[in-house]
């Protein structure tokens, strides 16, 4: 039987080179979705294979990796991906945002500001911001090529006409560097402003849909809105029960069957650090 011998960080070097080329192109054209020959990874499509392939391609032996899902280091899929790289690359892992050089994330951007020597890798399920308005790839690529984003503005306008406000709470579309409309992955719109003028390189990997895109450091990222209906961040109006933060994104935790609930930081490292500093 053929015993598999896996390369550093799982992927073979040819594949990594192909992915790095796609990343370079993505960095050169901020917000543009670069097709790449995504591989089958040993975890299912839709579970972070795009992010894992990007991370595998940029990881070096000296990197320190942090993996979060829903902002937390201890959610099951984050544990699984962190373990994957600990085994296949033997790199150091951490839960500290400050200590990490590469942070792979699903659905959140850490609360702590990122630095120039850090890379944030997003797992992306549907990279196409226009997909739910136009299911055909041939059409949406044409729309991007012509910067024909009228359909998106009509959708946002219709939200306002029907609901009185824009009814998109996550995966809220942004325009990158005044050119491409981009899906920020299903991060809550609370996180959108953190993408703009961010010191860290932001890379987005969509494995099943075979797309990579990027926001280079210090790039302008604007959430789509209207002059009379400006973009608004959503945050539950309250404090974290554990650390008292009044500026972080909060998870709602149901504590009993009598309507009891509490709100706690979704970013576990942020919350723990605050509690550590207070103690």
């Amino acid at each position, binding site marked *: 039987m053929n015993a598999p011998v896996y390369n550093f960080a799982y992927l073979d070097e040819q594949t990594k080179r192909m992915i790095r080329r796609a990343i370079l192109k993505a960095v050169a054209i901020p917000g543009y979705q670069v097709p790449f020959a995504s591989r089958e990874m040993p975890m299912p499509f*839709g579970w972070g294979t795009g992010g894992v392939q990007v991370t595998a391609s940029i990881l070096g032996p000296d990197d320190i990796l942090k993996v979060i899902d829903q902002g937390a280091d201890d959610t099951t899929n984050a544990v699984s991906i962190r373990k994957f790289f600990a085994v296949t690359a033997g790199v150091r892992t951490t839960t500290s945002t400050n200590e990490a050089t590469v942070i792979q994330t699903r659905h959140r951007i850490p609360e702590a500001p990122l630095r120039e020597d850090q890379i944030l890798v997003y797992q992306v399920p549907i990279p196409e911001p226009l997909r739910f308005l136009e299911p055909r790839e041939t059409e949406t690529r044409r729309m991007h090529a012509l910067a024909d984003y009228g359909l998106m503005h009509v959708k946002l306008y219709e939200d306002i006409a029907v609901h009185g406000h824009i009814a998109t709470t996550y995966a809220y579309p942004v325009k990158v560097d005044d050119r491409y409309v981009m899906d920020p992955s299903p991060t809550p719109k609370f996180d959108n402003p953190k993408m703009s003028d961010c010191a860290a390189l932001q890379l987005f990997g969509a494995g*099943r849909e075979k797309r990579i895109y990027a926001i280079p450091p210090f790039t302008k990222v604007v959430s789509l809105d209207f002059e009379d209906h400006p973009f608004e961040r959503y945050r539950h109006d309250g404090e974290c029960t554990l650390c008292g933060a009044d500026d972080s994104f909060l998870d709602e935790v149901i504590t009993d069957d009598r309507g009891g609930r509490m709100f706690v930081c979704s970013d576990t490292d942020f919350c723990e650090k605050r509690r550590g500093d207070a103690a």
Partner: protein
Amino acid sequence: MYVAVKGGERAIENAHRLLAHERRGHRTVPEISLVQIAEQLALAVDRVMTEGSLYDRELAALAIKQARGDMIEAIFLLRAFRATLPRFGVSVPLDTGKMQVRRRISAAFKDLPGGQVLGPTFDYTHRLLNFDLEDQSSVPPPSTSEAQDSAMPRVSDLLAADDLIEASPQADAGTPVGDLTREPLSFPAERDLRLQNLARGDEGFLLALGYSTQRGYGRTHPFAGEIRLGEVEIDFFAEDAGFAVPLGRITLTECQMINQFHGSAAVPPRFTRGYGLGFGHCERKAMSMALVDRSLRARELGEEVKAPAQDEEFVMSHSDNVQATGFVEHLKLPHYVDFQSELGLVRMMRAEFQAAQSGEPLAEAAE
């Protein structure tokens, strides 16, 4: 309390240990061997090899065992293994006309050179449970005869000789065959990529699509021109040696559908082809693939595209069961932060709704 809602490393480890325990089943029952799977669940192995895109019976059997018989999981295991294998090159095109045939039937002609050979088939069996198989059964050996030396020409080639069917497309040595595992797919896609996609595609999905064309959603008036099963030699052109060397033999099922075509101003009326090919014995898959291949040629043949089976973006984007199962099942992953955002929105909209009902001004109701 807070910790209890989050998963943990130990939870995963214990879940996997439990899975391994369940896979093994009751310890008093002998463990199934890979040889048993490869020999006695051969058609399962064939399907995993075909949709896993890797011809290796032993690895496919291992995947089936590890996956507890879950076919898509087994296909996934094989695909993930395949993705790490180095690529040496591309074989010389197979010549299925030279197949050592074990089964060959044509629904278009009563008799033809080489004859009809039924071979090992479920066709014409009565689907009655055979209770003899409950225990170890003794099976009489099959009747045999000398292998025929005479060629068994393909039905489509016989028809092509009279120009009654379009010629088989010839490989263009200057244009390498596409490979969607190495180059990302873009649309419109040519037939080489479409066929590769269909060959890897989910049998059930293609079966349903092919079936839909028979029920009027993009009719193609098909005849099963020929289905053949047997062994074909693979040759590989070795740069160092300067000539093609045989790598070995693989078992293939090939289906050539013959479909009606009325012709056009430039093309005389003649039959067209739909093509299906898979590893091992996989007639249902090969036939479904041939039906869908022909439907997807609508654009090329100037037919109106109106049914799902004719829509290459729809078919090719959804045929891969490894992709499909991953994305459907990813809904099991936590979506706390997105759901939290939606909860906030619904609460705000409910407050607005209630304010409107009670006649209070809107603006104050918003959070």
